[in-house]
């Protein structure tokens, strides 16, 4: 049961992060390709977005490990 719980936790978090990261990276690449001089600003925004999106799956991985370890 613990394994299933861990798998569901990591899987759902990874799906959410994948969708979020895809949206962020897609729009940033579009913007940079259109205006290469704005690369620094767009990369900064992208970095903050990617970092904040990835915080949740990391928590999910940790929770999954804690569930498996019990």
């Amino acid at each position, binding site marked *: 049961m613990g394994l299933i719980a861990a798998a569901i936790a990591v899987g759902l978090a990874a799906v959410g992060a994948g969708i979020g990261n895809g949206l962020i*990276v897609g729009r940033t690449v579009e913007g940079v390709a259109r205006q290469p001089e704005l690369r620094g600003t767009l990369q900064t925004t992208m970095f903050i977005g990617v970092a904040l999106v990835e915080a949740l799956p990391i928590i999910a991985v940790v929770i999954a490990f804690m569930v498996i370890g019990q």
Partner: protein
Amino acid sequence: MTEYSQMIRRYSQYTLYVLALFVMGWGVTSYKSVFLGLILGTVFSLINLFSTYRKVNRVGQAAVEGKKAKSLGSLTRLALAALAVAIAMRYPESFHLVSVVIGLMVTYIIILIDSILQTLRFK
């Protein structure tokens, strides 16, 4: 120095300040395992920060040159977090598990607070 690398430098600077505080807490107080866990988590968090920096930079470079970037390195970062937790679970007498998790979140908290402050400053 570009705006992007300036930002990373600021974040790593703040993270190192926090890490120094944790090391001081480990040396001075009697909560050894809690502060050791925080130190472990913060070190892995710093590695994650640099990994994100390199990958995002590579994606930006690829977008400018019209090439393809293979990945954003999400799996590496998740595996690093899992490694930190595995170390904490392997040696529970040295590392407090919850403080490792809090340590892993240090850079994200710093990024959140700093971006809010920057937005307020340039409003």
